[in-house]
């Protein structure tokens, strides 16, 4: 199942959770709740000890997951155990991909990911310049490789990414690291305009928290919204208050519904493409 399929008919809602946060069993339930709430694809974080692109919320999720015993091998089991029928994206840092298996290099990791049902990757510390080997392995196993476009990305770098991107392009709504904020969307329209003619779906992330955010983003022309920290916050709160798993799952599903609904509303307000 190619990632692009998630964006086929309507704006996609793509949630993120760190796999194994706060533990293996609960995390399975939470990811499944997102699917139940209308996720069109899911980004699953494989925790790395040095997550330089994450804000505090996701850093803490990563610490919880690692402390509960998450490893790359467990992650693959996790994916295999998941009962969802949407495309899955593995979000992790390059060192884990590179070290996996006997021989150094990304191929063993990609092979195993394909085996358990991963559809693509987002690797925030892997720039297009260094992506050759991973791109090749993805091609070999039929997986997608998503790149992130930032507000500051230069035209030259856009070209380099465009050559290699597949599945969707991740449009970073603002500078900085992941984390829910209120000031979403300001730089988004401009970013979307710069890649309007790319032939992959454009999903916008970084700081989207509510249905209204999602609506505004889609109204600006995005093909989908990516939401991480707002969901992780729910996991964190449940963990801290020791809430029952199904209650937390219920809250995640509810927010998922709101976000998906917002995204759908956004389509209506979208400037209709002129027919030719």
């Amino acid at each position, binding site marked *: 199942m190619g990632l692009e399929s998630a964006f086929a008919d309507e704006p996609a809602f793509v949630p993120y959770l760190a796999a194994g946060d706060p533990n293996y069993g609960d995390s399975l339930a939470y990811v499944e709740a997102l699917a139940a709430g209308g996720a069109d694809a899911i980004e699953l974080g494989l925790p*790395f*000890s*040095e*997550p*330089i*692109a*994450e*804000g*505090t919320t996701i*850093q*803490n999720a990563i*610490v919880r997951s*690692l402390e509960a015993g998450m*490893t*790359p*091998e467990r992650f693959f089991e996790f994916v295999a155990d998941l009962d969802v029928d949407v495309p899955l994206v593995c979000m992790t*840092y*390059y*060192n*884990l991909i*590179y*070290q*996996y298996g006997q021989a*150094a290099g990304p191929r063993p990791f990609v092979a195993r990911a394909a085996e358990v049902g991963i559809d693509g990757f987002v690797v*925030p*510390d*892997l*720039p297009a*310049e*260094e992506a050759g080997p991973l791109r090749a392995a993805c091609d070999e196993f039929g997986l997608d490789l998503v*790149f*992130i*476009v*930032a*507000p*500051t*990305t*230069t035209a030259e*770098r856009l070209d380099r990414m465009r050559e290699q991107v597949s599945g969707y392009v991740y449009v*970073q709504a603002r*500078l*900085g*690291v992941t984390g829910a904020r209120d000031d979403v969307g300001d730089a988004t329209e401009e970013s979307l305009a710069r890649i309007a003619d790319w032939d992959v779906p454009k999903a916008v992330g970084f700081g989207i928290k509510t249905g209204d955010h999602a609506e505004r983003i889609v109204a600006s022309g995005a093909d989908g919204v990516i939401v991480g920290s707002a969901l992780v916050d729910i996991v964190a709160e449940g963990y801290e208050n020791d809430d029952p798993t199904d209650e937390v799952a219920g809250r995640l599903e509810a927010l998922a519904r709101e976000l998906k609904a917002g995204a759908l509303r956004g389509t209506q307000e979208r400037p209709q493409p002129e027919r030719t």
Partner: protein
Amino acid sequence: MSIEDPKFGEYGGQFVPEALMPAIEELADAYERYVLDNEDGFMDEFRSRLADFGGRPTPLQYADQLSARYDTDIYLKREDLLHGGAHKLNNALGQVLLAKYMGKERIIAETGAGQHGTATAMAAAHLNIPCEIYMGETDIARQRPNVFRMKINGSEVVPVTVGRGTLKEAISETMREWATTVENTHYVIGSVVGPHPFPKMVRDFQAVISEEAREQAIGKTGGLPTDVVACAGGGSNTMGAFAEFVDDESVDLHAVEAGGSSLEVDEKAGVAPNSATLSTGDEGVLHGARTKLLQDSDGQIMESHSVSAGLDYAGVGPELAHLVDEGRVNPVNVDDDLALEAFHRLSQDEGIIPALETAHAFGYVEKHHDDLGDTVVINVSGRGDKDLETVIEETEKRDLDIAPDMSILQRMGGGGL
């Protein structure tokens, strides 16, 4: 447009979040223009400020007692005399000045032991630009004098509370902060690590060490030294001390890492009780570069350890990793015990109290002087004032013949230093 190769063989590169790419490209461009091409006289101003503010050139001193002890001519490159007490200022001053040439309005930096932080705070005060230093909570608690020095130089010190609150976390946090404020902010990284152009640029700022030492050695001995020895954490004093000798094939280069308490690792706990990255680490990607790392078999970064906070880092500069693979640099290590002993020996025999980092280089020469040639340059990367408390504690734990009797301090009452 940048033309410099961002790699050293297979090491190096720019493994950073996309949001940072424009910043490091801008920096690579600035590096080439100002540092390599001396545009607007940047390098002239840098060298002149290093002389007047920093106190360069530092001496190359003949060590009477050690030379007699080892029956070898030992020369000390005295970076401990640089303003701030370590080689760190060479880099900090260079980068802060570069930030000004680039029109940046704000400096951020990470620090572990606090030496790079204090150097950056001094440079930022000197050049009148606001500065924030990110430092792990644990390090703040155990490096109080350096925290105070940064604050009195007018810098903010921002506690990093994630993880164990040490250098690794502080670097990650500073990268995140940079990703958020990249347009007006320069991140002054503290060693020859991180994405291109940092490893080359920091090396070039530190290369003044070997530039001077090479000339001084020729002046004093009529020829090149047989060996250059430097401790290696990230490797900035190391590359600084080696840079101008790399092409002199007759000169052996020894990078002395922290052997810590043991070279064995505890995979389960994710702990390597050393930071002997060059000797025991594997290739991987950390903090923006491909290099040698202390990591478990999954690729998770291990907690490193050394009695000297400044060597306590799980990575190492990519150029050093490359030079080791090429056989140009000899990767060795010295454990905590030997380093402490060397600390006391240099203090007593030569009247120089070295940083604990530096003491590792001397520990190596103590143990292996028979394998060295007849003219050895040791880089005294910093002074040990910052380490007094640690040395008291660590000496008390051991039974070192060489250590002085410290009972006067107990007799006279009072708590810590």
